[in-house]
């Protein structure tokens, strides 16, 4: 006891941590809930404390409780607090909790945007990583929109760890903010060729995920993926790509042809089962997409089937399962090749694993043919008997029915056999699928006229032995079959041998225990039987039988009249009165039979389930107008015409899941009481029938019912004698049919042989083949009795069937975006700036103008492209006509020719070309044609067209490109026959490298477009902003050219990513500079070192232990054409003045023969603007700030600024990191804060072309400089 107290006090001394909590819960097995509730109270206390460590601990515990199912949403705000801790330990706890508990409707998520942004740009990669991971779980549309740009930037982070996470999370961003897809896509595509395999895999992952939902937009990537597939060794990536191809091939059969060979090679070579399996899967998809079998494809199928057989025979159940799964895909298109493995599949039916048995069942579905249906079903019936679990047995049952009824009973040759199978199935106890069997019985009996006699006999026995079925009826779904049995016996009662007996069976008192809807059918059909009996006794003078029948009805029906079920009651009392009346008439010896049977007369046709919907509205009929005065409100309650109509709506039984009792069959009743319009409808229907080729024409006298159905004339008489014993329903009779069937077939075969000879002669005599392409032509089995399967009726000129509608809520629908279209200027990811400013961006007119401007050159370019293409096509043709060796030689020559041509073209291009903006469109359209080109199996590599394009793009550095191009053309010979897998591997490698270069060229172009014009030259820091003037461009425009020579180009992000460390504003803030290094030459650049001459004020942060003048190694090497980004941290003492730092980049250029040392000087320019951080500020706080006395003011006046005011604001926000506090008409207040905490407030007013800016700041020097910079920005436009 004492010990316990001591222990308790110790527990209180220290906060419980997660381990203690878990331990506690385990020790309180009996009163867990109570213990946890006390723990939650403690946690609430802990959360109230100021100590972040305590809070983090509490949140950590909450995360655990959340897993156990406790609601922790109340702590959402505390989670945000912990997330924003500066310590990684706590941050991680916070983000973990957030990822577990936050979702879209969590309102505190709104508060996290800035925190997450800060974490994303943290210098510590794990802060960023943890933020990305968390964000991936709870990203909302708002977060996605606000952070898309930041994440985009991270996609080119120096650390592969961040890159891969950033790439992966983009998928989530796309889902939540589809507008970001197009702007981000180029960069995403670049990442497919990232040097880091993890990043590459992530990019593949994302694109595959995107492409799976909207494959057609990603077809143009096929060549790229193809290359990856042939070069990658990472199985995970390979699997993804191969799966992607599986999704793409249905859209582009030519792709499939290209894929077959490398996939087959992979199948042969790989040892990884997972890869093998996916290859087989994709080959199957390819084969499905290639509708017409090419000769060598049967080999591919054989290979697949053979490999799958190995999988299925494997002892590993997983492989077995997957093998069967894949097999079922082959089955759809190539059933023959699967059918040969029937033995194996039947064997799998005996497997102890249910999943495998179910898969095998699926396969059986497609393997049946007329020949083997009976045999297979027989086997299944054996399994039904053996199966223990009801679920599996039910599955078997539905499969048997599915197999038999598939494609309109195509494979059933003997319906008597099928009916007896159905009857046998009724003996299953406890099945849920009674209604399924019932609907099958109804369907067959209605649609196969010839079987009715047999069916009725069977159903009569079923009814007679109903007690066997209904043994324990309560939980027995099987009694549903009685519904069908009763209905069939009633409807087709003219076929009954002994209607009296059946009638008696239907009116047994025990029937009253059946479910209501079945009783109702019983009562109704008893009446039909009654009519039949009367009719059969008509000629008979001795009236005892009819009298007895009436008496029986009158005696038995009262039971139903008392039924609780309304339907039963109503029908019963109606019929009871009718019978009583008939009895009266009978006693007066009046002939009533005719009239009574007329009650149930009528032709009965199956109607397609959707028929009603598809009846076209006749012309001139407006269903919405009233045909009489609209009724008053009160009246409308009584009248419910709608309800009546829905009941009458004909449905047909083929739809499996419709409950039997819902089924209504369209029936045209002709009785004396039928209203006049029925006659009209009947006329219409007759006409319709006449037009319907599938309709079995009935004799004109449809009134004379219950004679032999007139249509029967052309149905051959059943050959099988019906002496087959049917008396004991418990006996499996279907087996006998199997035997009988065998005999019959043998007989037929013999006959057929004779006939065949004759037929052949006939055919030779020139008579065309009958176009009857029925299944009989496949297999020479004729059905036992020709069965006319009545097709479901459809109204004339029925509307075409509805397309399957896609789920409108599917988030992927929004991502169905054409990615090949050129980026419009209006499409961009919102840039990091205050929301108010963002809303005030570019007016529509501007966009349009820009659109036109870019459109024109694009068209021109298009033409050029086409011409080039034509040229190529010609080349190709020419080449094709020559033999292989010549081809190679010839081509390299031609390529040179092309190159020259491009050079000649170039000046023209330059003069025409108003901006680089036209570049991406061309490259995109080129890509599409690339795809065609690539798919057309032409041997010309895409390289040829690339070179001129690049040349056009790099106007300033034309000379280099030409030299580069010349180099390009050197190793051309191995490029022939691009994808020939048989090529020696050495060649292959070269080829790949080559292709890579091409890609990189393209990439380079992109950079040009986004980043900068080339004419700017060395001194370009300020000039960097020139381009941005037109429109606030996407984030990348923050980069400006730092320095460039023929080897390398450096871009600097304008010290945009400014942050402070742990809020320590006093001593030395830091500025992060991102520098993009881009290799412009064709050699490998390595050992790059970055050095900056420190000034007193600004210092490059170097790792501990290195001297103040040591240079920093750039953490990567650059293969030709590649660009990468590195970040450097500078410590800045004073931020009031702009700074310039001189620096040098040294690197080694490595060519194949030699390596040279090169260097590049540059100047880093830190403007005062770059020390400002966009900080939102509320107007009240702003007012307070202005009131405080210690702000110095200054003002500046800008003349001749003619741009819309919101444009101007956007520009200030964007370039100078301000945020709009408030805006009233042409006056706005803006705020920003320096990294050292200086407040900068602006009041911007505009009148006409004059803009006056009044500014206040606690540091006049800084203010002056900032204003100068603003002035400069605007003087340049």
């Amino acid at each position, binding site marked *: 006891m004492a010990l316990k107290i001591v222990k308790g006090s110790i527990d209180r001394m220290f906060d419980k941590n997660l381990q203690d909590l*878990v331990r506690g819960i385990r020790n309180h097995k009996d009163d867990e809930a109570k213990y946890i509730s006390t723990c939650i109270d403690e946690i609430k206390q802990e959360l109230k404390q100021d100590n972040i460590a305590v809070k983090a601990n509490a949140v950590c515990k909450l*995360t655990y409780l959340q897993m156990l199912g406790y609601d922790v949403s109340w702590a959402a705000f505390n989670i945000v607090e912990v997330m924003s801790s500066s310590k990684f330990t706590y941050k991680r706890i916070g983000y973990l909790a957030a990822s577990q508990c936050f979702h879209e409707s969590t309102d505190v998520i709104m508060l996290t945007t800035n925190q997450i942004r800060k974490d994303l740009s943290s210098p510590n990669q794990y802060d960023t990583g943890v933020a990305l991971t968390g964000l991936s779980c709870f990203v909302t549309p708002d977060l996605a929109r606000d952070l898309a740009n930041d994440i985009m930037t991270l996609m080119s982070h120096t650390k592969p760890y961040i890159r891969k996470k950033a790439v992966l999370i983009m998928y989530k961003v796309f889902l939540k903010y589809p507008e970001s897809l197009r702007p981000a896509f180029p960069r995403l595509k670049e990442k497919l060729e990232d040097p880091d395999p993890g990043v590459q895999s992530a990019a593949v992952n994302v694109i595959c995920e995107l492409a799976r939902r909207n494959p057609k937009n990603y077809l143009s990537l096929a060549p790229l993926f193809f290359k990856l597939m042939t070069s990658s060794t990472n199985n995970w990536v390979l699997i993804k790509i191969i799966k992607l191809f599986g999704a793409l091939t249905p859209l582009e059969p030519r792709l499939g042809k290209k894929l077959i060979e490398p996939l087959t090679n992979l199948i042969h070579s790989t040892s990884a*089962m997972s890869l093998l399996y996916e290859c087989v899967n994709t080959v199957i998809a390819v084969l499905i997409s290639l509708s017409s079998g090419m000769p060598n494809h049967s080999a591919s199928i054989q290979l697949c089937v053979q490999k799958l057989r190995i999988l299925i025979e494997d002892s590993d159940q*997983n492989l077995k*399962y997957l093998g069967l799964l894949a097999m079922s895909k082959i089955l759809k298109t190539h059933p023959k090749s699967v059918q040969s493995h029937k033995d194996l599949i039947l064997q799998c039916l005996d497997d*102890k694993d249910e*999943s495998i048995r179910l898969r095998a069942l699926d396969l059986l579905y497609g393997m049946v043919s007329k020949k083997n249906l009976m045999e297979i079903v027989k086997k299944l019936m054996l399994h039904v008997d053996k199966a223990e679990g009801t679920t599996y047995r039910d599955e078997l049952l539905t499969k048997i029915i599915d197999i038999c009824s598939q494609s309109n009973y195509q494979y059933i040759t003997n319906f008597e056999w099928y009916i007896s199978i159905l009857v046998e199935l009724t003996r299953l106890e406890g099945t849920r699928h009674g209604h399924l069997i019932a609907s099958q019985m109804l369907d067959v009996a209605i649609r196969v006229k010839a079987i009715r006699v047999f069916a009725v006999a069977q159903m009569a026995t079923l009814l007679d032995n109903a007690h066997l079925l209904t043994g324990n009826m309560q939980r027995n779904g099987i009694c549903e079959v009685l519904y069908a049995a009763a209905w069939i016996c009633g409807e087709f009662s003219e076929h009954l041998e002994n209607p009296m007996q059946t009638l008696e069976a239907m009116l047994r008192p025990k029937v009253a225990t059946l479910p209501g809807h079945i009783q109702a059918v019983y009562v109704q059909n008893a009446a039909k039987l009654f009519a039949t009996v009367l009719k059969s006794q008509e000629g008979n003078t001795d009236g005892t039988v009819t009298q007895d029948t009436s008496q029986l009805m009158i005696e038995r029906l009262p039971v139903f009249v008392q039924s609780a079920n309304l339907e039963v009651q109503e029908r019963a009392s109606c019929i009871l009165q009718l019978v009583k009346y008939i009895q009266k008439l009978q006693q007066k010896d009046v002939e009533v039979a005719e009239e009574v049977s007329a009650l149930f007369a009528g032709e009965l046709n199956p109607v397609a389930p959707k028929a009603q919907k598809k009846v076209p509205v006749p012309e001139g009929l407006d269903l919405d107008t009233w045909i009489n005065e609209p009724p008053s409100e009160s009246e409308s309650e009584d009248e419910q015409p709608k309800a009546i109509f829905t009941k009458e709506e004909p449905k047909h039984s083929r739809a499996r899941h419709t409950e039997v009792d819902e089924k209504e069959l369209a029936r045209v009743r002709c009785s004396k009481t039928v209203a006049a319009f029925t006659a009209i409808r009947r006329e219409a229907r007759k006409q319709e029938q006449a037009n319907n080729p599938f309709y079995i024409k009935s004799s004109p006298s449809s009134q004379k019912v219950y004679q032999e159905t007139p249509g029967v004339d052309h149905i051959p008489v059943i050959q099988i004698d019906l002496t087959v014993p049917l008396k004991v329903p418990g006996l499996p009779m279907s087996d006998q049919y199997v035997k009988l069937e065998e005999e019959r077939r043998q007989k037929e075969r013999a006959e057929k042989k004779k006939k065949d000879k004759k037929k052949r002669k006939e055919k030779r005599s020139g008579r065309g083949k009958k176009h009857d392409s029925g299944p009989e032509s496949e297999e020479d089995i004729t059905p036992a009795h020709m069965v006319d399967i009545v097709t479901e009726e459809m109204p004339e000129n029925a509307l075409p069937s509805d397309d399957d509608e896609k789920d409108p809520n599917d988030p992927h629908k929004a991502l169905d975006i054409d990615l090949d279209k050129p980026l419009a200027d209006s499409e961009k990811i919102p840039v990091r700036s205050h929301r108010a400013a963002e809303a005030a961006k570019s007016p529509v007119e501007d966009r349009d103008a820009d659109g036109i401007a870019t459109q024109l050159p694009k068209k021109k370019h298009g033409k050029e492209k086409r011409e080039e293409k034509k040229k190529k096509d010609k080349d190709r043709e020419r080449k094709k006509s020559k033999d292989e060796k010549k081809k190679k030689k010839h081509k390299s020559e031609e390529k040179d020719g092309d190159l020259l041509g491009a050079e000649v073209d170039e000046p023209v291009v330059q003069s025409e070309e108003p901006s680089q903006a036209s570049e991406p469109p061309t490259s995109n359209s080129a890509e599409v044609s690339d795809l065609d080109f690539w798919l057309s199996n032409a041997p010309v590599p895409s390289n040829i067209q690339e070179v001129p394009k690049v040349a056009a793009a790099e106007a300033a550095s034309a000379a280099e490109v030409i030299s580069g191009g010349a180099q390009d053309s050197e190793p051309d010979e191995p490029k022939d026959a691009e994808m020939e897998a048989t090529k020696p591997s050495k060649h292959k490698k070269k080829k790949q490298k080559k292709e890579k270069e091409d890609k990189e060229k393209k990439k380079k172009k992109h950079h040009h477009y986004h980043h900068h014009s080339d004419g700017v030259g060395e001194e370009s820091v300020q000039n960097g902003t020139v381009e941005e003037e037109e429109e606030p461009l996407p984030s990348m425009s923050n980069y400006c050219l730092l320095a460039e020579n023929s080897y390398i180009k450096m871009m600097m992000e304008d010290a945009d990513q400014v942050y402070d460390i742990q809020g320590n504003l006093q001593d030395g803030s830091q500025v992060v500079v991102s520098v993009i290094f881009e290799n412009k030459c064709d050699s490998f650049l390595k050992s790059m070192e970055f050095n900056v001459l420190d000034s007193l004020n600004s210092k490059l942060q170097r790792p501990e232990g290195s001297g103040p003048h040591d240079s920093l190694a750039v953490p990567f090497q650059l293969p030709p054409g590649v660009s990468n980004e590195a970040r450097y941290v500078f410590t800045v003492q004073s931020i009031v003045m702009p700074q310039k730092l001189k620096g040098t980049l040294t690197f080694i250029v490595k060519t194949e023969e030699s390596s040279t040392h090169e260097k590049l000087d540059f100047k880093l320019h830190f403007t005062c603007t770059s020390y400002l951080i966009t900080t939102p500020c509320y107007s009240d706080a702003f007012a307070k700030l202005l009131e405080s006395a210690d702000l110095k003011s200054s003002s500046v006046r800008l003349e001749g600024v003619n741009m819309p005011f919101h444009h101007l604001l956007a520009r200030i926000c964007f370039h100078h990191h301000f945020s709009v506090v408030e805006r009233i008409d042409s006056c706005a207040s803006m705020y920003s804060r320096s990294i050292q905490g200086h407040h900068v407030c602006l009041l911007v007013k505009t009148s006409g072309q004059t803009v006056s800016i009044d500014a206040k700041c606690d540091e006049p020097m800084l203010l002056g400089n900032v204003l100068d910079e603003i002035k400069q920005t605007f003087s340049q436009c």
Partner: protein
Amino acid sequence: MIKAILMFNNHGKPRLSKFYEHYTKDTEQQIIRETFHLVSKRDENVCNFLEGGMLIGGSDYKLIYRHYATLYFVFCVDSSESELGILDLIQVFVETLDKCFENVCELDLIFHVDKVHNILAEMVMGGMVLETNMNEIITQVDAQNKMEKSEAGIAGAPARAVSAVKNMKLPEMPRNINIGDINIKVPNLPSFK
């Protein structure tokens, strides 16, 4: 995409649940229960794929699971994931746990569910596979743990001491449950490369 990752023991007690799609907490618990019922009634040597489960269902989804000693690892994935690939991924996950916890047993996972989450976060992110290379995963996890330690520094020492003291009471505590065969045996499968 991976829709959810669940870990529970032979008695259906959740040890880790990670949903990459939002469900209400009641639904989550129901899913865990249902998944447990589906998975636990299967024999040892049947295939590791399951179709269905009403909640996580949809024909596109599959449950892929592995059973190690006392624990079930269940991944619910859609058709864009390779079945065998995911099986290998589970194996990588368990092997990583084994390395990080040095002979992992259920107790490790019970008491350090946060660490398990952190390890998992290096493998799967937002339902997509981030990394399959075990060494890379371990490197990143270790680096982060190191950072955590350095942050705790001297200030963390008392806390560590306290938890050490607390852990000394361990023996009396968990013995009431069966730890006999609790070690997760990591079979040597052909590793996924």
